[in-house]
């Protein structure tokens, strides 16, 4: 008696299931050809908190990526450990094109090089898709600071090592390297404070006068300078930054030092070729979009696109370069 009912129930259940099978069947096969599947969201992992330059750039290209790829692209912030948490998530995702991420060097290049970080990825875990910008590092002080020039500041830091605190966006990030290189070339030593969630936390702490010196990128200080909330003393680039025309480079001040952050987009390694091509094309289009370039300029960011292959080569070169200076920023005990 009840057995027939069970049977009937199964019949009903499987019928209902079958009605929908057309829509669902074959999902997962031939992922490359129909990539991206409409309605399936592409996650863009940003390894820093919202509000920083990495996040802003990702959110600028996001609508154009959506247009180009014809599906939702969602920016997901995974801040922490100077980018390592986000990079771990990015590289452990399936290489199906539905997870891509913003990658910034040196953090992404260096984190796998230091064994004490126990990073689960290497350079080969990423498939570079395209580089977007190079953002030179700057050094800034409070607007009411007694230091008017870079030389004033560095001489003071040399005379009294570690008497001033300086922000970074985490251990072994671009800012940390810049500080170490400053010490190496000029002898000026600051006490680094690592705001490992990203530039917006570092900037907030600087504005509240909890750190003396802000080490950041050009894009982070462009607005602060306009509002008179920071005095930028030097840019670590070959030429002056267009958005900070009055700020001398380190070279002009007599210090041979160039440092910055290079940012681009990558996927977990192993994308099917067709998927990679589509993503690369969409990202190039988004990065080079005139409106995006203009907005980036307003933020103090100079677009400098590199194709996937070139970005990959650039990455490899950076790895070589940073290997040399890594001992400056690793713990010694």
């Amino acid at each position, binding site marked *: 008696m009840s057995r027939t009912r069970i049977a009937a129930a199964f019949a009903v259940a499987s019928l209902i299931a079958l009605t929908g099978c057309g829509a669902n069947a074959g999902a997962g096969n031939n992922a490359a050809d129909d990539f991206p599947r409409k309605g399936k969201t592409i996650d863009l992992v940003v390894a820093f908190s919202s509000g920083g330059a990495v996040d802003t750039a990702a959110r600028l290209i996001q609508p154009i990526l959506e247009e180009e790829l014809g599906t939702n692209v969602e920016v997901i912030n995974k801040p922490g450990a100077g980018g390592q948490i986000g990079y771990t998530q990015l590289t452990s995702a399936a290489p199906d094109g539905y997870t891509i991420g913003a990658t910034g060097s040196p953090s992404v290049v260096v984190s796998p090089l230091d064994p004490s970080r126990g990073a689960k990825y290497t350079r080969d875990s990423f498939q570079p898709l395209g580089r977007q910008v190079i953002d030179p590092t700057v050094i800034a002080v409070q607007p009411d600071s007694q230091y008017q020039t870079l030389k004033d500041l560095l001489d003071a830091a040399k005379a009294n090592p570690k008497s001033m605190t300086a922000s970074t966006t985490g251990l072994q990030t671009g800012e940390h390297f810049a500080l170490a290189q400053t010490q190496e070339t000029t002898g000026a030593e600051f006490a680094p404070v690592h705001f490992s969630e990203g530039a917006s936390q570092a900037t907030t702490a600087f504005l509240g006068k909890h750190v003396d010196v802000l080490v950041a990128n050009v894009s982070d200080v462009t607005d602060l300078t306009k509002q008179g909330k920071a005095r930028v003393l030097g840019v670590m680039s070959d030429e002056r930054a267009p958005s900070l025309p009055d700020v001398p480079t380190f070279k002009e001040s007599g210090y041979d030092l160039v440092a910055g952050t290079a940012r681009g987009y990558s996927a977990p390694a192993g994308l099917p070729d067709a998927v990679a091509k589509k993503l690369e094309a969409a990202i190039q289009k988004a990065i080079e979009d005139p409106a995006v370039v203009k907005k980036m300029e307003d933020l103090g960011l100079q677009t400098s696109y590199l194709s996937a292959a070139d970005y990959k080569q650039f990455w490899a070169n950076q790895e070589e370069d940073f290997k040399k200076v890594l001992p400056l920023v690793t*713990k010694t005990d």
Partner: protein
Amino acid sequence: MTERAPRVAPSVLVGIGSFAAVGTYTLIDSIGLGLWTSLGPGPGLFPFAMGVLLVAMSALWLIQELRSPSEAAAVVDRRLVIEVVVSLVILAAVMDLLGFQLSMFFFLLYHLKLRGRRSWVSSLIIAVAGSFGAFYAFNYGLNVALPVSAIPLLNTIGL
């Protein structure tokens, strides 16, 4: 006021023991992580403090219990716990294999019909709605993908 129990309840002792054990483990493990490095406070500093806190509190609690044992806690319905937990574990174990719809259907049926003794009609309606219905609502309505079966035969018919 209930009368004072003569000694500490065994479950409380087990609890205190395991908190102390977790604390000790944390303590030891965090020393390995490094309390302080040349770069400043290390990854182990904060866990170390927590380990110390946990061990200290367990000790304090033990002293409190020895002085005046707490009243026996209410008994749990062991059958309920076992039935729910075991069924959940089985569900989670087979979900990737059978897919959300089938595994959830049987799970709900078990809870409604066998445990809850509802009528067949209401059990089936709710089980179908909660498994197949929920799958479609989440997949297509909310764009949240629930797992499909790993068995090719079931997968091709949309389960």
